């Protein structure tokens, strides 16, 4: 299982000092946070994408490219990449480029974005958010999976004889997660492709997240990528920790009370009881996080939001120290217990390459099996000698979209 952090990249006034960082300072802080995430032993750093103040990360692959050079182990990801308003061709190119630069330590989470004006600024209509996400991703998939692409759709200039460069590293595109808070269409899309489903989790009650994930798992199985418990699930989380629980509450409260999204609304106590937000001791965070498994099942990736609402850099780095030092090692051990052997680990470039090799080998053996089938003993009685011993849990089989009946409706 992978543990990491995701950042929204908000520039927010520190309510305890009244100080607001300038954009440059905030961006540098995000880079420091990204590097520190690796130093404390985390597995993933993911950045948001925004095109409006008070958010700074408008160009995620630039940021992640820098971090790729400054780190050696951590997976660089997004939360989220805007599949609606960004050109899927540019996404295909940018992330294939980043994938090479980072030696494969790259994946991405696609999201629609919820800032109304961003759509018209990029020539789109927010009411078309779902159709844009569906069509743009279908194109992105083809740009990575196929060499020469002829394409036409509703939302973008047609392509004739287009080859997206660079080609995916080792012939294996970055793993894709689909992020959504409440749209079953996106869970359905993730399930259809056998991709990961990332639930934001932190802004809504857990019962809601539980239903979305259950739906995704069920549809993942329906589309033939494996059993429901083998579906690839990621969860958001949000924590603030101090050794003594009450110190954490006292220190975090002004940031909570003034935070974007939920500030000036419910009390810290109400919000922690109604959402996964946990403010307290490392042990409380461990207990709460382990509880996610009760409703999400055994999952692959846990990311926390650690650096928003104006928290100063020094505090964020201290939080990462606690997370990496006291919390994640315990979670690794605890989540590993009773985890079914056929539940996949978090996807990495290496696991995707290995799965692709297994698949290629299986195809070769199938062909070889067909070639020898006439001579095989028992063939006359309908006994097949084709090797079926391929582990389906290693990687969900890619979907051949040409063979899928697109008139099939989601239930």
């Amino acid at each position, binding site marked *: 299982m992978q543990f990491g952090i995701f950042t929204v990249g908000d520039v927010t006034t520190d309510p305890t000092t009244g100080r607001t960082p300038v954009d440059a300072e905030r961006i540098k802080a995000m880079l420091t946070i990204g590097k520190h995430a690796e130093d404390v032993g985390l597995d993933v750093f993911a950045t948001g994408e925004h095109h409006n103040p008070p958010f700074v990360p408008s160009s995620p692959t630039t940021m992640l490219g820098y971090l790729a050079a400054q780190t050696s182990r951590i997976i660089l990801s997004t939360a989220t990449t805007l599949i609606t308003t960004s050109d899927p061709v540019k996404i295909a190119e940018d992330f294939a480029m980043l994938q090479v630069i980072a030696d494969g330590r790259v994946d991405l989470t696609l999201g629609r974005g919820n800032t109304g004006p961003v759509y018209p600024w990029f020539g789109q209509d927010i009411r078309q958010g779902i159709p844009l996400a*569906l069509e743009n991703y279908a194109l992105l998939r083809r740009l990575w999976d196929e060499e020469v692409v002829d394409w036409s759709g509703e939302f973008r200039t047609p392509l004739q004889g287009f080859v997206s460069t660079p080609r995916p590293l080792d012939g294996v595109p970055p793993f894709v997660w689909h992020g959504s808070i409440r749209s079953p269409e996106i869970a359905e899309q993730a399930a*259809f492709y056998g991709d990961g489903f990332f639930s934001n989790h932190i802004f809504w009650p857990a019962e809601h997240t539980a239903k979305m994930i259950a739906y995704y798992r069920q549809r993942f199985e329906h589309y033939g990528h494996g059993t429901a418990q083998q579906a690839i699930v990621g969860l958001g989380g949000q924590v603030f920790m101090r050794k003594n629980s009450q110190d954490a509450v006292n220190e975090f409260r002004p940031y909570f009370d003034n935070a974007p999204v939920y500030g*000036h609304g*419910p009390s810290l106590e109400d919000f922690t009881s109604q959402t996964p937000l946990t403010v307290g001791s490392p042990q409380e965070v461990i207990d709460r996080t382990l509880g996610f498994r009760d409703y999400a099942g055994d999952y692959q990736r846990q990311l926390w939001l650690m650096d928003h609402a104006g928290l100063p850099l020094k505090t964020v780095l201290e939080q990462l120290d606690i997370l990496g030092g006291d919390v994640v090692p315990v979670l690794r051990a605890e989540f590993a217990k009773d985890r079914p052997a056929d539940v996949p680990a978090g996807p990495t470039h290496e696991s995707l390459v290995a799965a692709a090799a297994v698949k290629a080998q299986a195809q070769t053996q199938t062909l070889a099996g067909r070639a020898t089938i006439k001579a095989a003993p028992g063939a006359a009685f309908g006994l097949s000698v084709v090797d079926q011993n391929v582990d389906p849990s290693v990687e969900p089989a890619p979907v051949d979209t040409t063979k899928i009946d*697109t008139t099939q409706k*989601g*239930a």
Partner: protein
Amino acid sequence: MTVRTLAVVSAGLSQPSSTRMLADKLAAATVSRLEEDGIETQVQTFELRDVAQDIMNNMLTGFPSPKLDSVIEAVTGADGLIAVTPIFTTSYSGLFKSFFDVIDNRALTEMPVVIGATAGTARHSLALDYALRPMFTYLHAVVVPTSVYAASEDWGSGADTVKTLPDRIDRAAGELAALVARTDRSHLVQDPFALDASFSPTGGFQAQ
């Protein structure tokens, strides 16, 4: 005996509240009309004041507290709705509007509704028709033709003696009861994961 559920929403703020009084009278009249048709009615009445902070929190966070969620469930899952607001500054109160703002805009589709309002004078009675009625029409609810407005004088000697408040209430209740008797809304299964019939996971484009 056939059973129907009736939700009553009152946005009155004071105790006692004339808005709540009007809501209760509309409810009682509707129950009695349905009884005449052999239909038993279960009434659930909600004072929005009790969930006022939850409504505003929902506005800010995007999700309802468990307490508000139970109110929304009861209202949207009913067979009929009586919605009554005080008139503030020539329109529905902000609390009343906010409650309907945080409900999913498809959740009241085909809901039989009676609208009512109270105020100090009769001068703002058209607010029912320029504010409340269009709001419920937008939500695809079915608002009965008669709406009931009760000014302060309607509760005492200055009341209309030709079309009295009880007459108006009874007429509205009769219209609502007729729709509630026929609907089976409360028995419909709401599937939040139901996808549009035209949905395709690859979008509208055709693979070449």
